[in-house]
């Protein structure tokens, strides 16, 4: 299971991405479980909105953080997210 770069990415309807004030971080919530996210992971997942594909997510984040060469890191995280069922592709 790997990311198809041509298809848009969508956050799973069976999970919830939420800001937790008490923890000062984003978390993914699912049946009886929770994953705490660092800031960059949360930024990536917020763009998994069904409209962006891999390349579009990379360019948007590179622009936002005035950085380059993020492709490998973002792809690696999205592969993990896909494997865990946090995101989906059609």
């Amino acid at each position, binding site marked *: 299971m790997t990311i198809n770069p041509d298809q848009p990415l969508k956050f799973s309807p*069976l999970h919830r991405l939420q800001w937790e004030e008490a923890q000062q971080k984003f978390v993914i*919530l699912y049946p*009886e479980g929770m994953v705490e996210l660092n800031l960059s992971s949360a930024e990536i997942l917020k763009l998994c909105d069904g409209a962006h594909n891999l390349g579009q997510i990379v360019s948007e984040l590179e622009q936002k953080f005035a950085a380059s060469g993020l492709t490998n890191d973002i792809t690696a995280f999205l592969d993990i997210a896909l494997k865990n069922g946090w995101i989906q592709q059609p």
Partner: protein
Amino acid sequence: MAGSNNLKITPPRWLLAELTYACPLQCPYCSNPVDYSNYPSELSTEDWKRVLSEARKMGAVQLGFSGGEPLTRKDLAELVRHARGLGYYSNLITSGYGMTEEKIVELKEAGLDHIQVSIQASTQELNDHIAGTASFEHKKKVAHLVKKHGYPMVLCVVIHRENIHQMPEILAMAEELGADYLELANTQYYGWAHMNRDLLMPTKEQFEQAEAIAQAFKEKVAGKMKIYYVVPDYYENRPKACMNGWGTTFLTIAPDGMALPCHEARVLPGLDCPNVRDSSIERIWNESKAFNFFRGDDWMKEPCRSCDEKHKDHGGCRCQAYLLSGDMYAADPVCSKSPDHHLIDEAIASARNSALTADEKPLIFRNSKNSRQLA
């Protein structure tokens, strides 16, 4: 008090709201106290709302509506709506008994995130025998409806000697019902299950065979279904890290408002567990005797005190130590380093003997009549 004074107290993350001890089922391994009939009073809707609000403010985010059977509470949808407004992730832990499609839709609209349905076995005959109530076909129907209405569906099957041989069929049933998660919960021997242990505990050979089948299935369905496997701790050499450490993560509120560091902790003597009718959640969590009792490791005795694994398993389960050895400060007898470990070997041998001699002793089912007699 046994707890340490210089300990950094972490906020609760998990709130288990046991709404009621009422239940139409009679499972002989129920996790409710054996003497639950002594606690018939239930918190009001307003009390529950306050509890949810106060715990959420401290940082609790996962919320389990449990029981008994939580569907017997008429205000369930109202509580779910309140919880959603506060930002909880709400889990309904139900037998499915009394669930209708109308209710599933109502709860979805109120903001319920997930429904966990328990099934006792893969056949109607055994399911209805263990549940003590004809419920198998309805449970399967409820599981389908849960999926139909877009909830993640968790199927929970408690494993014991009467159903462990059905492991392949149980897995096939989970697949057929389209479970997103399957919880295979080996029976934990507290309360009712402890009383029925000779009749419920599988032999080691049965465990190993069932575990191998479940493991192969887990690999087969990877990416489609997640398996939560609750280990049979009597067959382990190290105890479970019970509750992720006392008073670190989990907060249980019993139907009568008693606040417990774990849902079994009512059995421990001298904790003076506080009640939410008298105190705020913040005070209970931070200041009460009960929640500080086994925080940290100052309370530990040998072999835990000098053990290099004490931060991993926190000495195991306090209730299990008390239930088996009579000493709630002792190492969990599951640990092979425990001087009481022979109690585990004896329990296994006793259950094995019962299995091989076709023990005539009947299962004690969880119902009010038995509870009153045993209380």
